């Protein structure tokens, strides 16, 4: 167990290091980072000053050392637009992002799990086919387009829901639906295949042989076991949602991290863009680590596999 956790931790650290190297190198190899770090419209003297201040005139190794040491100190630079440390900005937007992601997740699970179960229990019947169509549509409709259609229908034509902003539950409804839509399809697919696997297992056969009613077999024996992979995926997807929300947040002017990133791009506020990518990536790595470890704690088969 300890060895497993140590190994996962090692992988996570390597991933974080590679993440910082990737971002560091891309910024430096694709052009002059001083031009990105300086405010738009700055003079050549300003650019040179920035270059010296950030050590961009020194060797790549020294630069990387400086980059990492400021990261470790939590210094991600200052936003040009807001004139405040980027980390503060990020943390102030995080709750809104999480709220949206949790709402979208709840929606995707409420839709995805029951439809997945029905599709598995009625495999190859019309319910299953309907589920397949739903999954295909979910995976094929871009979330931002779904968002725009929702606005068109519910805000412009019907006038029921506010088209943008945040604050009330009514504001949350459409963004959560647009964001959760894709994931509902993904969760449905996984629930279906996971249920099918469990339904073919020995212990479900035994439960049936015992003469348990089919409803009980499905709800008590199959469903609980089939749920494990779905919930694992959901845990990781929650972080992925915070990330892909950038388009949905842009559509609905939702004040989360995605919107922050979009503003960073629109205002050419490079420190903001770099910091959001770094922190989002780090968040994914850390949450995957937590999920892996929790999974091993719950399921001994994984712990002893290696």
């Amino acid at each position: 167990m300890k060895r497993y956790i140590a190994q996962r931790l090692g992988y996570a650290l390597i991933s974080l290091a590679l993440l910082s190297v990737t971002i560091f190198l891309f910024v430096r190899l694709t052009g002059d980072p001083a031009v990105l770090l300086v405010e738009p419209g700055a003079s050549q003297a300003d650019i040179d000053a920035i270059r010296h201040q950030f050590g961009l005139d020194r060797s790549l190794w020294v630069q990387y050392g400086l980059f990492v040491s400021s990261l470790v100190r939590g210094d991600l630079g200052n936003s040009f637009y807001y004139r405040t440390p980027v980390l503060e900005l990020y943390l102030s937007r995080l709750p809104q992002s999480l709220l949206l992601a949790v709402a979208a997740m709840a929606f995707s699970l409420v839709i995805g799990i029951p439809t997945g179960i029905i599709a598995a229990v009625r495999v190859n019947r019309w319910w299953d086919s309907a589920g397949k169509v739903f999954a295909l549509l979910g995976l094929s409709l871009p979330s931002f387009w779904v968002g725009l259609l929702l606005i068109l229908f519910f805000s412009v034509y019907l006038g029921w829901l506010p088209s943008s902003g945040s604050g009330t539950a009514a504001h949350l409804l459409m963004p959560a639906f647009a964001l959760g839509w894709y994931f509902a399809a993904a969760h449905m697919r996984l629930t279906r295949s996971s249920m099918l696997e469990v339904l073919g297992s020995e212990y479900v056969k035994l439960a049936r042989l015992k003469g348990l009613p089919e409803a009980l077999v499905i709800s008590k024996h199959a469903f609980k076991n089939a749920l494990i992979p779905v919930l694992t995926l959901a845990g990781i997807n929650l972080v992925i949602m915070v990330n892909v929300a950038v388009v949905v947040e842009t559509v609905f002017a939702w004040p989360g991290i995605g919107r922050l990133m979009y503003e960073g791009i629109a205002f050419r506020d490079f420190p903001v863009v770099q910091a959001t990518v770094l922190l989002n990536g780090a968040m994914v790595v850390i949450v995957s680590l937590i999920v892996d470890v929790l999974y091993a704690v719950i399921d001994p088969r994984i712990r002893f596999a290696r």
Partner: protein
Amino acid sequence: MNGARTATLTAGWRLSAIRSIRSEGFPLIATSLLGLLLFVALFANVLAPHDPEVGSLGERFRPPVWQQGGSEKFLLGSDHLGRDVLSRLIFGARVSVVVGFTAVLVAGVVGTLLGILSGYMGGWVDQVIMRVTDTWLALPALTFAIFLAAVVGPSEMNIVIILGLVYWTRYARVIRGEVLSLKERDFVRLAIVAGCSKRTIMRRHILPNVLNSAIVLGTLMLGVVVVTEAALSFLGVGVPPPKPAWGLMLADGKKGLMAGYWWLTVLPGCCIMLMVLSANLLGDWLRVKFDPQLRQL
């Protein structure tokens, strides 16, 4: 000799392809739609009734022809600069097809090569490639792509490179797994005994055997790539205006959304949806057809 070998290989591929088309469940509609899209993209300059990038400000926000106020000049209406929506959709197909197919190709070539290298060479080569793959896979594709696009600036060429960089990891993972099992097969062992160099084995014995999977993955990736391109363009870091990309049209369409100019939002989205849906349908079918191992993907 090499030419003859390739000829029999492609003939075999073609034969199995024809046989598959005759078989059940072939997604005829999806394939025809993709074919139509290719046709439209190829002959965009013949088909489009107007210049997609030039409009007349006096004719802004004209509705489609069947609505009140619509004219036959703009069959599907005009946008906020008075440009013909139909022409922009037609030229948008060209952007999506070009960016989509090239990006899938770039990602596929890089990912397949690295996957083969990683799987066949093993050792530290494998370790390095797989660590990078895992990290890049962990990075949310969209965020990563936005970051790269923000660094290098928007252009069609850059988008292709960015999408290739972001998505090669998907191929590398799957192909490596296949190579690991191919490596243990008799024909590879015999080739080693026969004294073939590693390069020859990878090129002549491994590569042809993973091509099926690469093609299946590529078809499935086409939808993902098209959506990502649209999202990037929508956010303003993709194809630069005034080029008519569907994602860009959606971003422009937002300007008329609250006024109820539905055609600017509904029509480009429909085009994206049809292309992605067709690619996914075809990809799903190919996956089941050629590669039962990939069904779980």
